């Protein structure tokens, strides 16, 4: 027999019900036919023989009704009514179907139906927006990739590769006339490599320069070593200090380039001006040559920059 009160006593507030979830603030009912989701005398589908719910399936809402006459036939207990997609019409349908039913159930059904339609609308809106796709990472794969990356980094020897590439470009002349290094060593470098048609032109230029310097070589050689040493120091200085001095050294290199074309003697005298940081070391050496006068031609700087571009 269907004695609702007895059932409620058995599964009710202080007793055990397998659909009941107890939390700090209240009791919930996990039964899928429950209309409010709380564990109440009025909203327990087991303890009420006349009961109705709204449930939705794939965007379609249905009204489920249970009456005491069908309590003996569990397979046919719930009557399923499809509700219209129109909100107002559906509310009217609920009213029609639940006419003469207790107010509580009617009210709760309509509330539930409203909530369901609202969340269906939201789903439809969100699917139109951007969907974020979550891609799972496999830990094993990630670890493997990380290890391979480290090994590839070691095998790459990046610094060496970059330096080699830059030197290649220098040799091929992509930098034009910005950098002019001492000719002897340049010749040696060129001789070591195979000669292409491109490099033959460079050799011609060097030939001309050699002719210019041929007469002056006597003075120049001894000093040139110091000059290259100094240039190393200067460059070290520049690298350490970086920034402003880089630009200064660029200008100085350009000035150097002009003056190499003219007279090499003047280059050496520029040395005192350049390595400011090194004055204490180089003092006595410089003073030997300090008596020779220097003439800079700063107006020609823009010309050299034009050469570079």
């Amino acid at each position, binding site marked *: 027999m269907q004695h609702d009160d007895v059932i409620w006593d058995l599964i009710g507030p202080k007793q055990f019900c397998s659909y009941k979830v107890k939390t700090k603030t209240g009791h919930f009912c996990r039964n899928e036919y429950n209309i409010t989701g709380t564990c109440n005398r009025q909203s327990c589908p087991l303890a009420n023989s006349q009961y109705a719910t709204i449930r939705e399936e794939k965007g379609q809402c249905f009204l489920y009704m249970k009456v005491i006459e069908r309590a003996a036939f569990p397979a046919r207990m719930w009557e399923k009514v499809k509700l219209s997609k129109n909100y107002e019409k559906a509310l009217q349908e609920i009213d029609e179907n639940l006419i003469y039913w207790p107010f509580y159930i009617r009210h709760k059904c309509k509330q539930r139906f409203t909530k369901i339609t609202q969340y269906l609308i939201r789903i439809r809106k969100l699917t139109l*927006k*951007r969907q974020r*796709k979550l891609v799972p990472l496999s830990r094993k*794969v990630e670890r493997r*990739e*990380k290890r*391979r*990356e480290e*090994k*590839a*980094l070691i*095998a*790459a020897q*990046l*610094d060496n*590769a*970059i*330096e080699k*590439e*830059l*030197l290649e*470009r*220098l*040799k091929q002349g992509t*930098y*034009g006339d*910005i*950098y002019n*290094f*001492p000719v002897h*060593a*340049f010749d040696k*470098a060129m001789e070591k490599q195979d000669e292409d048609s491109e490099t033959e032109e460079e050799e011609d230029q060097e030939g001309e320069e050699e002719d210019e310097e041929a007469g002056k070589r006597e003075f120049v050689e001894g000093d040139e070593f110091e000059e*290259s040493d100094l*240039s*190393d120091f200067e*460059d070290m200085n*520049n*690298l350490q200090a*970086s*920034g402003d001095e*880089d630009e200064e*050294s*660029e200008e100085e290199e350009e000035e150097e380039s002009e003056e190499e074309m003219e007279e090499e003697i003047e280059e050496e005298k520029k040395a005192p001006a350049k390595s400011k940081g090194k004055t204490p070391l180089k003092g006595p050496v410089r003073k030997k040559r300090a008596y020779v006068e220097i003439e800079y031609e700063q107006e020609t700087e823009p010309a050299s*920059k034009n050469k*570079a*571009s």
Partner: protein
Amino acid sequence: MDFVEVPVSEDVPVSEDVPAKKSKVKKEKKKKLKREIKEEKEEQGPEPEQPSGTLLPPSYSLSEIKNKQRRHLMFMKLKQEKRKLKLDLRKKRRKEREALGDKAPPKEVPKTIENQRVYDETTVDPEDEEVAYDEGTDEFSAYFNKLTNPKVLITTSDRPRGRTVRFCEQLASVVPNAHVYYRRGLALKRIIPQCVSRDFTYLMVINEDRKVPNGMVLCHLPDGPTAHFKVSSVRLRKEMKRRGKEPTEHHPEVILNNFTTRLGHSIGRMFAALFPQDPQFTGRQVATFHNQRDFIFFRFHRYIFKNEKKVGIQELGPRFTMKLRSLQKGTFDSKYGEYEWVHKRHEMDSSRRKFHL
């Protein structure tokens, strides 16, 4: 502990001299008991003092010594002997080489992964006409014919964290003519037409996961290819050791290393098209994309030529590693786009010697 009892008294007079040889090897205290145990072990076990050190009686192996310390010691000795043998062999070989002089056989080249790489049939031949024709007519031809100047839009995924934002800013300082914009939940498919109308040539989206940038979508804009990379090992400027000052506004040079196959070639051209065609050599800055075993390493340096044989480089700028995940033909369209190349782990990662870039 049965070995303590029987043989000790017999062996003590015989093996007095043995401990002297073993003493250098011993690490523990020289208690008489232990010494006796050792002596006994030596009696039973291998003969390390003999010149052919590693010879063991056939029924004996290193793993049968129960005492862990002794076992370890014997193993160390075994290793030392092996190493010595190897060294001797090397020296002998070197002497032979010198003795033979010119007639010596050529030096053997050690095998590396790069040596053993499976030959990829799509490797580009420098003189290949088909490749040259393709490159003359592909989406980058406009750039390489100096018709367009690159203009890059850098953005992130939604709600970027500080690290990603700083990374974007630093990238913008490295790539000339780059602008950073906040994403604010906009859809990429809507951003792209706007970018095109404003003359951008590249769209770069840095994806973020767990407060760290981990992916990049690089989209060439007037309907160019879209490449999706996995980004790792991001180092911002302040984390670099011995870095220089900020990168200046000069256009950097570009170095592309090791892009050999057709796919690698097209990716390389994508990177090249990020930077303007006229590098300003006075800036002395160089951006490098180096491909090694399908990992693309990005570095940004400032260089200085000390003389024509030596160049010094100083790293500025951020550094990161990329791995190509997919290359899609049109602009960004993950659902309906036509993919030219997708990394399929089970097919492509099965061989350790096969690389695709």
